[in-house]
């Protein structure tokens, strides 16, 4: 016969173990969520498992204020938004390189997201072949680190717009956000409040 006080003690210890297990499980789950929040879930680099495809980057050059096409072979995801993000990431990686002709710090992680929104004219319903508005969400770190100047900022905006149109011709308009918010200028000069017409800027055949 087990004494009564030992039974009570056993029950108390069992309850304490269960409660401690529940608390630990809860803390583990919260820590995992906190870790996921800290990471950007969307890929900043194209996954290596994706098939390599040709992408046209419209690369800016400060020396002659020009934007010229450069064709690279990159592994690109199939999703159009992720694909454009990967292409823009590669473009900004070129600008972040030490010998860049248009030096801009930041690199691929400066593109937080790219969204595509169909442009429905009048009451017409948007179709898969409708012209698209691309919304490029830049990080505030990129805007803060961008060299201030009329030429420098204009070339960055121009090369992003032209690159989007070159890789997805349905993109005819481009808007910019910084950390999800509208911002007056990129670094004091280039107007980010307007919608840019990518179709008119696009490479000529």
């Amino acid at each position, binding site marked *: 016969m087990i004494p009564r006080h030992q039974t009570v003690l056993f029950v108390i210890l069992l309850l304490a173990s269960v409660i401690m297990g529940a608390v630990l499980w809860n803390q583990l789950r919260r820590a995992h969520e906190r870790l996921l929040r800290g990471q950007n879930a969307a890929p900043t680099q194209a996954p290596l498992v994706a098939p390599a495809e040709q992408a046209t980057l419209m690369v800016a050059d400060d020396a*002659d204020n020009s934007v010229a096409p450069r064709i690279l072979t990159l592994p690109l995801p199939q999703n159009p938004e992720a694909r454009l993000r990967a292409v823009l990431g590669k473009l900004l990686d070129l600008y972040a390189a030490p010998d860049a002709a248009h030096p801009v710090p930041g690199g691929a992680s400066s593109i937080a997201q790219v969204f595509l929104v169909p442009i429905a004219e009048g009451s017409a319903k948007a179709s898969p072949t409708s012209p698209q508005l691309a919304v490029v969400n830049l990080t505030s770190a990129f805007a803060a680190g961008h060299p*201030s*100047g*009329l*030429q420098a900022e*204009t070339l960055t905006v121009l090369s992003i717009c032209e690159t989007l149109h070159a890789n997805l011709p349905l993109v005819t308009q481009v808007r910019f956000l910084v950390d999800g918010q509208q911002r007056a200028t990129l670094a*004091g*000069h280039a107007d980010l409040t*307007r919608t840019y017409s990518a179709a008119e800027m696009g490479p000529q055949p």
Partner: protein
Amino acid sequence: MAAIARPLMLLAAVAAACQPLAISQAPPAASAARFVVVLDAAHGGDDPGARLGNESEKDLTLGLSVKLRSLLMARGISVVTTRESGADVDAFARAEIANRANAAACLNLHAALVNSKSGPAVHLFLSSLPSAANPTFVPWNTAQSAWIQRSNELAGELNAALTHAGITVTLGQAALPAIDSMACPAVAIEVAPQRQTVAQDAATSDDAGFEGQVAEALAAALVEWRADGGQFAAQPGDRRP
């Protein structure tokens, strides 16, 4: 006559009250005889613009504006400036000053450090607005669309003078609210005096020399613009015979 005039006046009053509009027709002949240049030194106040060594862009553009004003006035050209101090003037007020002046040329002045392999340079920018098909009345913030052709001609004149002075020039288009609202031949000019790799202290005296060279070339271009009758060239909305 009065019966016709009254509805017209009423219509004009209603149109003025609805939204700001820029009348983009060419200046009347009487005021066109006066050759006026508007100098718009960019930035000011809490907006310093780019950092160029120890100086800010707002101070450099003001200095260039003062220097250019002196050169132009010495050549008998009337000058209107959008700011005379470090105070900020918003884009709307700048355009209002320029549009009231009936100017033959409006120069929006900028300065920047550019890491260019070609060294010191001047970048000329036109408004990226499309040229307006019917430019008689246009929204205020697209007033420049009626003047794209004239602005292009002015940029050509500036380019020729700067190149003649041995200065590297690049041409481009930019979305700039300051010149988009101007109803005059308008060009944004970015003076890029030095490379980022040059030591800041050593470059200061050279910068002053380069800015002086640029100011001289711009003054020569505007004298040529006046001599060529650039301010009287036909406008898309010009109603004069």
